[in-house]
C-alpha cells in the first residue's frame, strides 16, 4: 500500500457515473451520482468537475435525498457548462475536492438570498439549520420559467418556521423586482442573526451592503475564474484573497474592505473586467 491509499487524496480526480438527470428549468439540470465524500461536504463547499474531453469547472456540491449521493446543478452557458449540461445518465465525469470553507451558520432568524445556481449552496445550508431557526429564503430569477428549488426549499424547511419568497425580474411569478430590494426591506423591518448569499455578484454585493451596514452578520460565497481550485494558479484572486483557498465564503467585514468585490473580476487571461 502506498501512502496515498491510506486516505482518499482530495486532490485526485475520482471518476463517478451520473445516475440520474433532472431538468430544473430549460437551461438548468441536476446530475446525481454516488460518492460518500461529496455527499457529506459542508454547506458552501465546491468540487472541480471534469467533463472528459471538454473542460473542468468549479461546481457547488448539490444535496441529494439519498445517502451516499450528491449532485451538481448546472446552468448551460458556454462550452464547458453546456458540456456538463449534456452529460447523460450512465456517462462518467471526474470530481476532485471538496474545496473551500463553509458557511458559519448562526442560530435564530436567518435570511438566505440565492440567485440562479447560487441556490445550490443555500439548499445544503438549509439541511444544517436548527429546527428552532426562523428561516427566510429569497429566490431571485429572471422569469417564471427560470425558477427552481422553490418546492425543495419548502420541503427542507417543513419543520421550521419559514418563508420562501420568489422574485422575478419580470414579475411573471412571485414578487416583481430585484431580490436585493426585498433584502433591503427585510433587514430594515426585522432582526436577523445571519444573512447568507450566493448568486450574481451584484446581488451579493447589495445584499452584503444592506446587511453589513446594519451590523448584521453576513456571508457571501464568491465565484471567480478557477483553474486549479487549490491555491496555485492565482486565477481566482479577488484583491489579495484567493477565492478557492481563502473562501469561497467571506463575511461582510472582510468584503466591505475589498475593492474588487461587486465591481471587477478577472477573465481567463487574468485581465480585470467590470461586472
Amino acid at each position: 500500500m502506498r501512502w496515498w491509499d491510506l486516505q482518499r487524496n482530495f486532490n485526485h480526480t475520482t471518476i463517478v457515473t451520473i445516475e440520474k438527470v433532472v431538468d430544473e428549468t430549460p437551461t438548468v439540470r441536476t446530475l446525481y451520482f454516488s460518492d460518500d465524500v461529496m455527499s457529506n461536504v459542508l454547506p458552501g463547499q465546491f468540487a472541480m468537475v471534469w467533463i472528459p474531453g471538454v473542460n473542468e469547472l468549479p461546481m457547488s456540491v448539490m444535496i441529494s435525498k439519498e445517502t451516499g449521493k450528491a449532485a451538481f446543478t448546472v446552468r448551460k452557458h458556454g462550452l464547458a457548462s453546456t458540456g456538463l449540461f449534456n452529460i447523460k445518465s450512465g456517462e462518467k465525469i471526474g470530481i476532485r475536492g471538496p474545496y473551500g470553507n463553509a458557511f458559519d451558520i448562526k442560530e435564530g432568524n436567518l435570511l438566505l438570498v440565492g440567485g440562479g445556481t447560487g441556490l445550490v449552496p443555500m439548499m445544503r445550508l438549509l439541511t444544517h439549520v436548527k429546527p428552532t431557526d426562523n428561516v427566510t429564503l429569497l429566490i431571485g430569477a429572471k422569469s417564471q420559467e427560470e425558477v427552481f428549488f422553490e418546492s425543495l426549499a419548502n420541503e427542507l424547511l417543513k419543520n421550521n418556521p419559514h418563508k420562501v419568497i420568489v422574485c422575478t425580474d419580470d414579475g411573471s411569478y412571485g414578487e416583481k423586482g430585484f431580490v436585493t430590494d426585498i433584502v433591503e426591506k427585510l433587514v430594515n423591518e426585522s432582526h436577523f442573526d445571519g444573512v447568507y448569499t450566493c448568486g450574481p455578484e451584484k446581488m451579493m454585493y447589495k445584499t452584503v451592503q444592506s446587511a453589513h451596514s446594519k451590523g448584521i452578520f453576513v456571508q457571501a460565497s464568491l465565484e471567480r475564474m478557477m483553474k486549479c481550485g487549490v491555491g496555485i494558479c492565482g486565477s481566482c484572486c479577488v484583491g489579495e484573497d484567493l477565492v478557492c483557498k481563502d473562501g469561497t465564503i467571506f463575511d461582510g467585514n472582510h468584503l466591505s474592505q475589498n475593492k474588487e468585490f461587486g465591481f471587477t473580476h478577472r477573465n481567463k487571461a487574468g485581465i480585470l473586467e467590470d461586472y
Partner: protein
Amino acid sequence: MEPSLVTNIGKIQLDKPAMLASGILGISLDVFNRLYRSGAGAVVTKSLSNEPWEGYPNPTIFSVDGGGWMNAVGLSNPGASNFAKMIEPNQDVPIMVSLVGSIPEDFATMINEFKNCNVTAFELNLSCPHVAKVGLEVGDDPELVKQIVTTVKNSTNVPVIAKVGLGTTHYLNTVKTAIDSGIDAITAINTVRAMAIDVETQRPILSNKFGGLSGTPIKPIALRCVYEISSKYDIPIIGCGGISTWEDAIEFFLAGASGIQLGSAIGDNWINVFDDINKGILQYMTKKNYSTINEMVGLAKKF
C-alpha cells in the same frame, strides 16, 4: 553575529532568499503584497507575453498521486502591457517580471512596457515544456537564446535572469549561451515535461495532454542541475524545483544557489511555507554559526 537572511544573487540583493516562482498565484499586485508580508523575498510574475493569452482549457492543473503537481496552464496571462499598468503603483515588493516570447523583438517591446515600474529583475522563461513556439522551443535554440539575451540586455539596466529547464538539447549549453550573451543569473529549473492518463476514461488528463511536472518529484533533478551549473560556470544561480522545507532550501544553497524559488509547495502547505522556511534557515545558520546565506553557497562542491 545574528544570522541574516539577506542574500546577494549577483547584482540582485534580497532581504530573504525564498521567492515565489513564476506562474504561481502571480497575477495581482495585492496578492504579491500578501506574499511579501508572508515572508517571500521576491515574487516572480506569471510569464507575460506581448498579447494576452487565455491559456488552455481545464484541466490545466492536477495533483500527481506519487506527489507533486502537473500543469499545462498554457501560459495564460493578461499580456505585458495590462500587467505593467497593474504593478505601476508598486513600491515595496521586489517583483521579478517573467517574460515569454518567440522572437527578440517580443522581449524588447515588453521590457519597454515596464519602464515606469519598480522591477527588481526580468526573468526570461526559456523553458516552458508545454507551449509550442515559446519556452523550450526557444531555450533549445542557441542562436535564438543569444539574440534574445543580447536584445534584452541592451534594452534595460535591470538585472536579467534566464530560466532554464530540461529540454531536447542539453540545458548546460543554454546556460553557456546565456552567460556568453551577458545574462546576470540563471534560474534552474522549470517543470519537467510529463503526462498522466486516466485509466477509467483512457484519456490524457490535461486538456493539452502533456504538462510540466513540479513539486517534490523534481527536487533531486533540480538540485543536480544547480550543482552542475555551479560546478561548471561562475554565475549566480536561483534554485527552483520541489523546494518545500528549510532542508530543501539549504540543500540548494549548498549545491550553489544563492536564492531559491518555490511554487508547488504552496499547493501543499499554503503560503506560510515562506515563514516556515525562513525560520528553519535561521535556526540552521545559528546552529552552524553562519551569519550570511552567501557563506553556505556551494559548500557541497568541496567534496
